[in-house]
């Protein structure tokens, strides 16, 4: 069975490391981007099966990255989660408009998130 690829877009090294730890447990192949531009580039190049997108990035916010990715209709079907330390009503509004799987509030509830990942990547 081919394993699934997950792209993590987050500028914080420990955030990436923590997600790496979780993704190891669901046996996913991992790609990492440190900013929005790289996130777009890696998405176009590798077409991941799931994207974990931090909202606060140095060059653009997560919503803009997704808008950019969605310019390609083939990539628009990739499921994704937003991750953020502080969910605001504004974020919720923007996220809902874009059709993401959800916004995950950090700190992430690890066991629960791993279960969710397993279901999505099955």
């Amino acid at each position, binding site marked *: 069975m081919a394993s699934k690829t997950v792209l993590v877009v987050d500028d914080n090294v420990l955030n990436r490391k923590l997600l790496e*730890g979780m993704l190891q447990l669901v046996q996913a192949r991992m790609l990492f981007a440190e900013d929005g531009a790289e996130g777009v580039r890696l998405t176009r190049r590798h077409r991941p099966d799931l994207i974990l997108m931090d909202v606060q990035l140095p060059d653009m916010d997560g919503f803009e990255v997704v808008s950019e990715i969605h310019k390609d209709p083939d990539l628009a079907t990739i499921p994704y989660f937003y991750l953020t330390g*502080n969910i605001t*009503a504004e974020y919720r509004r923007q996220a809902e408009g874009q059709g993401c799987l959800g916004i995950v509030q*950090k700190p992430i509830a690890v066991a629960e998130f791993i279960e969710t990942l397993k279901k999505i990547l099955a």
Partner: protein
Amino acid sequence: MRIGSHTTDLYPMKRDQRHFTKTVLDFAPVGIVVIDAEAHRIIDINATALDFFETDRSDAVGAVCHNFICPNSEGNCPITDQGKRVDRAECDLVSRKQRHRRILKSVVVTTLGGRRCLVESFVDISELVEERRRAEAASRAKSDFLSNMSHELRTPLNHIIGFTELVVDQHFGELNAVQAEYLSDVLTSGRHLLSLINDILDLSQVEAGKLALQPNFFDMTALLTNSLVLVKEKALKHGIKVSLKAPPYAVGMLADERKVKQILYNLLANAVKFTPDGGAVDLSVSLTQTRPEPGTAVAGAFAAEPPGDEEGWILLCVQDSGIGLSKTDLERIFEPFEQVDQSTERHYEGTGLGLSLTRQMVALHGGRIWAESDGENQGSRFYVSLPRQVNSNKEQTPDGL
């Protein structure tokens, strides 16, 4: 004035009356202008108004009022052209020296000497407006700061909790008993720190007036069942029995589901926290047509059949067999930073913010929250009334109490 006299006639001489009136009008710190309603020209004016207009009587009397007050309303006067009443309205005043001020004015339409007149009185609120602006800017700055801090604080906390959880769950190797225990303690403290941060952020948002309602449709019965699951684990650890008395049917609600969850969680967590081992916590709901009131509210009263309409109220009751509340406690517990006197053995952690926040959230819905207790160690009952359909236009109780 003659002492002991019944008469209201303060001025035996008409001349004294005129003198009194003139003195009052001239020296009251309120600008008073009498205006001809047709021509909008000033007929009479008091000394205070002249001060504001920075001119003298000969210039002011006969001038069009809009030269000084509400310059933008010329030809479009709310009173004479739109037939409105102007009572305590803010507007602009421009003096002869082109100095601008914000004033608060009231206007009375009357007839004087056969002429239809407007009697306008106003006070200077420039300082108030400036203070208001400063307060709003400060509030915005504080809100931005807190929003940033929230993100800054949660990021390392995410790492502390996340990495510890991965290791404690032994996904990356077995731990010996001490390692498992110590890391579990790290996790507990990390989670506690998180709840403190959440409380502080919530409370600050409340203070900034930013805690808004986001209503949605949901099933209250399902929400109640799920709420119990959240506290069951902790309750089991202390041998506390948890029970639910809810209808066998769905109860539709239009309310802010997340906040209702928070309200329930707060009350249930408190109940478990303040109940000694082996005790009981019961959650029940009643459905009523009219708003349940303290003293007459009955917990767990619902019909066998679901209610036909979407109107009415629900009454939640969280009852515990715990340490109870004294009369003093009952008065204080909904205040921020207040906590029940902790002279018991189990260490009760907490910030004391929970009930204050809970009350705010109940009030936002137009509901009420109150507590009852038969005394020390006699347990307590916390009641929350909520309308089944929150209407943000409806009058809400000022503080949910």
